[in-house]
């Protein structure tokens, strides 16, 4: 079945990703490249959840960086303020995001389209302001985050930090992808696509529209929260501005640029949105211009996301092999 092939393809992709550090280590600049790939993995984690929300359920959120910051500050609270191990911080981030996203989703997901976009934008901004004004967490000055230690393994040990976070980020992304692919290839995936197009018809077919929307909102918020927690530990220091509106929009751009009808598109989007500014460094002051131009062009020529381009190339390669 196609799903079997999809998972096999996924495994292959992650095997390559997993081998990258081994090759890069031979170069002097290896650390730099891995240092770029780790944030991509962390963004991917958040973008995968958002992809389900935007692409499959057809809801929009311009406030997901808010959930990332809740994840980050949960970790700070547990590790720095309470002194418990980091794993409890991640657990707390999951719990708080579950509860908060559930409470927010109940009134907010009744809104549609532009109104939902505005409301979620408001949520993101409010969360951001709370952390900026809340001096307990250092306010706008930010706060330092203790090392991520799981049992006695310290991820922040300077000798292995890049490699350790690289594998942590990408294995979490892999896990989230497997869960998401399971989900969308079941009755739940069909239900989400149905309510995306017509909520009334979906309800008439026996789909509990509000609970599906709530569930997918909470799921995406939890993934964003975990991503935020790990990001906090990885950066060792967090500022409220790390998770502001700009980050929310970046996440949505990743999802849309990568392709909304395929979860794997989120990874591609995260890759491009993160790496593009690095590649465009030589344009100096025109960097923003070129960056924006590339994104606009990509959306005009590949309205279904860049994943559709990859799929086309993939199909052509497969055809070539078959001919031989």
């Amino acid at each position, binding site marked *: 079945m196609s799903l079997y092939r999809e998972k096999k393809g996924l495994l292959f992709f992650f095997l390559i990703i997993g081998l990258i550090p081994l090759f890069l280590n031979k170069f002097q600049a290896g650390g730099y490249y891995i240092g770029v790939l780790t944030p991509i993995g962390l963004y991917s984690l958040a973008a995968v959840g958002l992809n389900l929300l935007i692409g499959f359920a057809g809801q929009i959120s311009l406030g997901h960086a808010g959930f990332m910051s809740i994840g980050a500050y949960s970790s700070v609270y547990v590790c720095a303020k309470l002194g418990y191990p980091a794993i409890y911080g991640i657990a707390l981030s999951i719990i708080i995001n579950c509860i908060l996203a559930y409470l927010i989703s109940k009134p907010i997901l009744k809104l549609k389209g532009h109104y939902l976009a505005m409301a979620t934008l408001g949520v993101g901004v409010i969360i951001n302001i709370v952390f900026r004004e809340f001096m307990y967490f250092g306010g706008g000055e930010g706060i330092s985050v203790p090392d991520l230690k799981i049992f006695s393994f310290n991820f922040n040990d300077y000798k292995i930090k890049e490699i350790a976070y690289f594998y942590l980020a990408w294995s979490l992304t892999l896990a989230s992808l497997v869960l998401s692919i399971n989900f969308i290839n079941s*009755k*739940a995936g069909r239900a989400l696509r149905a309510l995306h197009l017509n909520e009334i018809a979906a309800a008439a077919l*026996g789909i509990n529209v509000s609970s599906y929307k709530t569930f997918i909102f909470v799921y995406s918020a939890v993934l964003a929260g975990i991503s935020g927690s790990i990001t906090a530990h990885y950066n060792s220091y967090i500022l409220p501005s790390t998770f502001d509106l700009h980050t929310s929009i970046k996440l949505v751009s990743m999802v849309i640029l990568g392709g909304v009808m395929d979860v794997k598109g989120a990874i591609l989007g995260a890759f491009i949105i993160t790496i593009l500014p690095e590649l465009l460094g030589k344009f100096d002051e025109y960097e923003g211009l070129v960056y924006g131009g590339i994104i606009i062009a990509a959306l005009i020529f590949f309205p279904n996301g860049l994943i559709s381009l990859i799929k086309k190339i993939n199909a052509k390669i497969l055809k070539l092999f078959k001919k031989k």
Partner: protein
Amino acid sequence: MELLSIDKLTKTFGGIGAVKNFSFSADSNRITALIGPNGAGKTTVFNLISRIIKADSGSIIYNNINLLNQKPHRLMQLGISRTFQNVVLFDNMPLIDNIMIGGHIKCHPGIIKYLFSFSLSWKEDKILREKSEYFLEFAGLKDKINSSIAELAFGQQRLAEIARALVSEPDFILLDEPAAGLNPKETEQLGELLCKIKALQKTILIVEHDMNLVMNISDKIVVMNFGEFLAEGKPADILANKDVISAYLGDDELC
């Protein structure tokens, strides 16, 4: 035996009575047709039954359950499925998936379990797919099983929607103008399909403008006009009813 009985149902939209004190019943294993001139409130009655809009007063009793206390998505579990006046198929997935959605309620009720288990949906989908293919064949779309929605002609989309309404094996099927936009041949096909569905011991409530179809297949016809009950009876009685004729063709005095 009455499967569905509606009593004194009322619904007003901004002071205009769309449905006024409307009462009728549908017997089990029969085809009941709801007819009336444009704007009579037939589709409003349908939407009230399927809980898309809320009633002002009255009651809708199905199998001793008052539907007015039920949420829209619960109706499927009670055995009520419906089709729409403007065909609603989801063109973001293949036809077979569209039909499989009809069996949504027959799957495991949890959502979270589907995150962690692929084998669950694997097993369910296998059964559901077979069933969906069976009902597509039943509706006369055997050669379209692997098609996308866009490849279907409008008439075939109608049939597909009916097939979807059957997958959950409901007892009561609401059809909202299934013959609208169909040519005579397709309408004939539709009539045959509806008789085949009736033969499966199902109850059908149909809103329809095509009088030929209604007269041929219905066991009972309920006529409404301006949101009110006008007449009910066997097709032959309705054809002879003076009130019905004047409602459709207008009063003699006006001519």
